[in-house]
C-alpha cells in the first residue's frame, strides 16, 4: 500500500516538475476510501503520509479515524467492525498564481473562415458551418447550425442558437427561442 502511494506520488510530482511548478509549491495529500464491509458508499480518510500504512498500529489508527469521521457524518460508528479499503488516492497540487487575463485579438471586417458539411439535427439534414476555433476572434458572431472544432473539444451549435465571441475568446452561446420569449 505504502509503495503504491509512493509510486503515484513520485509520478505525480515529476509531472508537476515538468510543468515548471517549483518544489516549494508542490503539495502532496494521500488518502484512502473506507467503508464497513458490505457497504456500498464510503468516506475518504486522509493519511499522514505515504509511509503511514507501514506503521504497526496502522489498522487501528485507520479504523479509529474512519469511525470518528463516520460518527461526524452519520451520528454513530461501529468501531471494531471490519472495514474495507476501496481506493487509494494521492492528490498532488501545484499552487500557482491565477492566470493573467488573456485578451483575444479583435476580429477584422472579413468573414469567418469555415467549410460546410451536411449534419443531421432532429432528423433533418442541414448545411452546417465547420469552424476551426483558432479562427474565431473577439467580436465574431454567427448563428447555428455550426460545429466548432479544436484539439481538446468539439462544440455543437444547434439551429436556433447564436454564438458571440467575447473579449477573452470565450464562446457565448444563446438559445434564440429563449431570448425571444424573455
Amino acid at each position, binding site marked *: 500500500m505504502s509503495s503504491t502511494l509512493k509510486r503515484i506520488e513520485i509520478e505525480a510530482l515529476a509531472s508537476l516538475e515538468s510543468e515548471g511548478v517549483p518544489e516549494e509549491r508542490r503539495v502532496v495529500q494521500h488518502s484512502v476510501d473506507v467503508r*464497513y*464491509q*458490505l*457497504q*456500498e*458508499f464510503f468516506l475518504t480518510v486522509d493519511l499522514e503520509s505515504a509511509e503511514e500504512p507501514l506503521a504497526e498500529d496502522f489498522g487501528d489508527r485507520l479504523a479509529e479515524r474512519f469511525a470518528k469521521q*463516520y460518527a461526524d*457524518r*452519520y*451520528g*454513530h460508528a*461501529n468501531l471494531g*467492525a471490519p472495514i474495507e479499503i476501496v481506493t487509494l488516492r494521492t492528490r498532488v497540487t501545484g499552487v500557482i498564481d491565477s492566470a493573467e487575463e488573456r485578451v483575444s485579438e479583435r476580429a477584422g471586417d472579413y468573414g469567418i473562415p469555415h467549410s460546410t458539411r451536411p449534419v443531421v439535427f432532429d432528423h433533418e439534414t442541414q448545411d452546417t458551418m465547420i469552424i476551426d476555433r483558432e479562427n474565431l476572434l473577439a467580436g465574431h458572431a454567427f448563428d447555428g447550425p455550426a460545429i466548432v472544432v479544436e484539439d481538446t473539444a468539439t462544440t455543437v451549435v444547434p439551429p436556433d442558437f447564436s454564438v458571440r465571441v467575447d473579449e477573452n475568446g470565450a464562446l457565448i452561446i444563446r438559445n434564440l427561442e429563449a431570448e425571444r420569449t424573455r
Partner: protein
Amino acid sequence: MTLLEHAESSVGRVDPVTVEIIRNALTSAANDMNATLIRSAYSPILYEGGDCVVALLDVDHQVLGQSAGLPLFLGNLETCSKAVEDKYGKQVWQPDDVWILNDSYLGGTHLNDVTIFAPVFVDGDHVGFSATRAHWMDMGSKDVGGSMDSVDIFQEGLRMGPVKLHEAGRETFVVDIISTNVRFPYQTIGDMNAMIAALRMGTNRMQELVARYGITTIEASRDEIFRQTEAIERETVAAIPDGVYEAEGVLDNDGIDLDTPIPIRLKVTVDGDGIDFDVTESADQTRGPVNCGVAQAVSALRVGYKLLISPDTNSNGGSFRPLSTQVREGSVLGAVAPAACQWYFSHLGLLIDLVSKALAPALPGRVVAASHGDSMIINTAGTDPRTGRDWVTMEATLGGWGAWDGSDGESALINSVNGSIKDLPIEMVETKYPFRISAYRIEPDTGAPGQWRGGNGATREYEFLSDCTVGLWFERSRTRPWGLFGGEAGSGPEVVINPGHPDEEHLLKVNARPMKAGDVIRLTTSGGGGYGRVADRDPKAVASDVVNGHISREYARRHYGYDG
C-alpha cells in the same frame, strides 16, 4: 372564504414567504434523512434499490415532510407512533429513546418492513417525531428472505410490537433479540444503524428549524400548508360529478390454493367535496400470504386517490382530508392475526389501478389504463461457492404501464406501489451473486393496442452459476392489464425455467424451488393496457413503433392492419 377573511385568519400570522421556506425546509430535511439512510446502509435493496421511506411528523402524528420513496408507505408511518401512544399514553415519549415496530397488523405491511422512529424534543418539549421504514432482507422466516407459501404470521419471522430499541441513548436487549433471530445479523444491524442515523439527521434538522423560527411560527406555517393542501384537494374532488362508481378485479390466487381467484371490489362514492372508497366487499382473508393490515389498504387507496387528485404536490398532514375509507376487518385488506402477510402488496397494486378504472367515466382525461401492476418478485438464496457465504436477493421486476388520453404508456417501469425503487444494476448483481443476467430487454408486443398503446413489459433472464433456490411471486395473469375506452388489454406475465430444453417449465409462483448450476430462468412481465380504439391510432405512430422496435411487423399487421 373570501380573500380578505383568509388574509385575516392565517396569512396575518405567518407571511407566505416564511410558509414556503418552512415547507421546503421540511421536505429537504426528509431528503437529507433519506440520503443518510441510503449512504450508510449495508444492503443493496437499500443502497441501490432505495426500498425505504422517511418522514418528520408533528406531535399529533401528522406528516410535516416526507421523502418521495415508496408511495405505498404514503401516510402510514404515523400509525406506528400512534400505536405506541394508544398502548402507553403520551407520557411514554422520552428524549433519546428510539422505538421499533414491524407488526403487520399495526404497520400494515410484511414483517420485513421495519419502522424505526423517535420522539423529537427541543428544550424538554416534545415537538414531533422522526421516522424511517426500510426493508430488511431477512426476518428469520421459514425460508430465507421470506416464503411464498406461508400460512400464518409465525412462519414469517420475528414480529415486534412497538418496543424500545434505545432507552435514554443506550441500546436495549431488543438489538440482541434481533441479531439472534435474523439470518444476516451483521448486515441487518448495519441497516438498523443506518436508519437510526437517518432519525438523528431528522431530529437535528427539526431542532434547527425550531431554534431558528420558534415552534409557534412552525405550527402556524404547518396549519397554513395543511389548509392549502386540503383546499386544493377539495376543489378537485368537488369537480368530480357526484355519484357511485365501481370496479373490480381478481388476484390469481393466494399462493397456496392456485385455482381460486381472489376478488377485490372497490366502490367509490363522490358527494360534494368528499369522496369515499369502500373495499368491504373484497375477499375474506386468505390462508396464503396475500393479506395486509388496514393501514396498508388505506395507504393503497391514498396512492390511487393522489395519482388522480393531487399528483404534483408533496403529501403532508393536510392531504387526504376529503377522503374516507371503509375496510373490513378479517378481509384480505384488513387482515387480523394470525393471517400470513408476506406478499401484502399484490392486491394493493390492483386496487390502485381499480381506483382509476372506477373513476374513468367521471375523469376520462385524468385516468390511465391498467399497468402490469405487480412487483413480480424473484428471490434467490444459496451459498456463494466463491466466498462460502450465504446470500439472499429480492428483486422487483419492471413492467409496462397503461396508456392515457394523449400518450402511450411507458415501457419497463417499476410498479406504482414501489414508486422510486430502482432495479438492481446487472454489474452489481453479477459481482455480488453467483449468477449471470443473460438477457435484459424491453419486450416488444407485450403492451396493448389502442389509440394510445400500452407500454411494453421487460424480459430479464438469469443463468445460475451454482446450486441455489428461487422463489417467485408473479401476479395478474387472470386480471390482465385492462384497457380503457376501447383500448385492449396488455399481455400477462410469463416465467419459464430452462426455455427450449426438454425440462422446460412454466410457472408464476413457487417457494424455494431448487435450481442447479447452469439452469436458466426467464422472467417476462406484462405490458400495459391501451386507451381508446385501435381504429383511431395514427398510422404514422404505428409505422414509427415498427421502426423503433416497440412492436413487430406481424403485430402491427394483425392489430392495426399495417401494410408496411
